[in-house]
């Protein structure tokens, strides 16, 4: 690939953000800081949060809540998907319930959690699990159902144990969908966790956003928002790297090179 193409790609991926930043900076010259603060101030605040452990702990708390919620939904969704895949009766029973859950807004789950539970952390965990569970379950059951029956039968012909079958056939076959599910749900979870923390937490990015709103501090609100955006971008990048390594066996069309 020529260096011109690489430069062109970098330019087109950066250009929209540069334009957006320039427009914002231009607006900051004409509007008061509580509406459009200078980006210099915003990134100074971003840096302060990163280097001040007292503030960074709130970022870590939010990250921990996102990962715990996603992991809980992933494990529960995986179990439900296996049961639904094994038994059409279970599938017929659970699918409508999960579809019903998908229609419930995240904010409603926040209200239910506040009414039902006392512990802040459990409330947030519950909200995270309930909002991401249907997507995880549906994506995993889709992956199990799409698994090649021919390949499954081929491995079965060697009479493997259940664990061997899982390791050699099921896991590699469903891994692409699992990683995609994590990518999709990560974005959803980052949005939901802020809502959950905004209403019911005493720490975390959501809680800090509430403080900035009460102080009318737009630079602070943006700086805390960026922390979450950075986390999502970094995690997505890590998942992409895992995908590149795990799926290196995939054929690449020469036309797309």
């Amino acid at each position, binding site marked *: 690939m020529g260096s011109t193409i690489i430069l062109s790609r970098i330019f087109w991926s950066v250009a929209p953000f540069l334009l957006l930043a320039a427009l914002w900076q231009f607006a900051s010259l004409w509007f008061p800081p509580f509406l459009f603060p200078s980006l210099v101030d915003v990134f100074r605040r971003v840096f302060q949060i990163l280097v001040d452990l007292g503030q960074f702990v709130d970022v870590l708390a939010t990250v921990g809540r996102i990962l715990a919620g996603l992991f809980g939904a992933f494990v529960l969704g995986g179990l439900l998907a296996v049961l639904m895949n094994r038994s059409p009766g279970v599938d017929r029973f659970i699918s409508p319930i999960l579809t019903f859950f998908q229609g419930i807004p995240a904010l409603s789950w926040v209200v239910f959690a506040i009414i039902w539970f006392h512990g802040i952390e459990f409330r947030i965990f519950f909200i995270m699990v309930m909002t991401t569970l249907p997507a995880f379950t549906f994506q995993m059951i889709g992956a199990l159902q799409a698994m090649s029956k021919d390949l499954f039968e081929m*491995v079965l*012909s060697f009479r493997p144990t259940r664990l061997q079958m899982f390791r*050699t056939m099921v896991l590699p076959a469903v891994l692409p969908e699992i990683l995609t599910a994590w990518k999709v749900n990560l974005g959803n979870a980052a949005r939901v966790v802020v809502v959950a923390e905004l209403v019911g937490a005493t720490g975390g990015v959501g809680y800090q956003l509430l403080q900035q709103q009460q102080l009318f501090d737009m630079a602070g609100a943006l700086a805390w928002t960026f922390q979450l955006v950075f986390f999502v971008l970094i995690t997505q990048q890590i998942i992409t790297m895992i995908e590149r390594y795990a799926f290196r*066996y995939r054929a690449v069309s020469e036309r797309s090179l």
Partner: protein
Amino acid sequence: MSVAAAADPAMGITLDKVTKRFPKRGSDEGFVAVDRVDLHIDPGDMVALLGKTGCGKSTIFNMVSGLLEPSEGKVSVAGHDPFHEFDWFRGKVAIVFQNDRLLPWRTALQNVELGLELLGVPHEERRKQAMDWLSRLGLKGHEHDYPHALSGGMRQRVSIARAFATNAGLLLCDEPFSALDEMTANRLREEFSALVRENRKTAVFITHSINEALQIGDRIIVLERPAKIAYDVRLDRATGEAEKEAIRDRIKEVLAL
């Protein structure tokens, strides 16, 4: 546990009044795919099972391999029931399927290693055996290629190597060369029969090609629809061309009925 380290003795197959019915809408009796078949295959025989499409060849094949349960009668391989004693056949039966059924996430070498890995053969030993089989089948230099980078003929060779690597006593082959061009299929057929004879296996070879049956089989069994033995003939080295022509004509007659 190194099951594949020692060669398994060739295994005999007996079908005793075996019937297989599949459920069919609007019929209490169902669809009869195999109708009271009696068949005995001696250990070390190489049998070509010939018949038109839909005559029940694959159903017999699946019952012998233990993937299907007969509706009536008894299937016995080396005195054991392949369906109910499924695990007893671990390492004793190997299958070459119609399409190569290579795991796309494994290299050619890892695909050949699959059966040995499931049998618990130590890593170094299984790697050596897999390399040896790939080399014997003309795939030296392609060990680390993923299936998508191999041609159809090469992929089928990998699947043959995978079946032979476990050193199973019984080889079941379901039209393994039908998707290949005539030249490649001929060459692979010759290599395959030489390997079966050299390794003293019992082999059941499903085909719908009379030429293929004559080229490979020590014995040719022609099935009519639903699977019932219509013609059963034994060939040996003394069988001359004129006799083979007579057999060919008789098979054509039977298949035309």
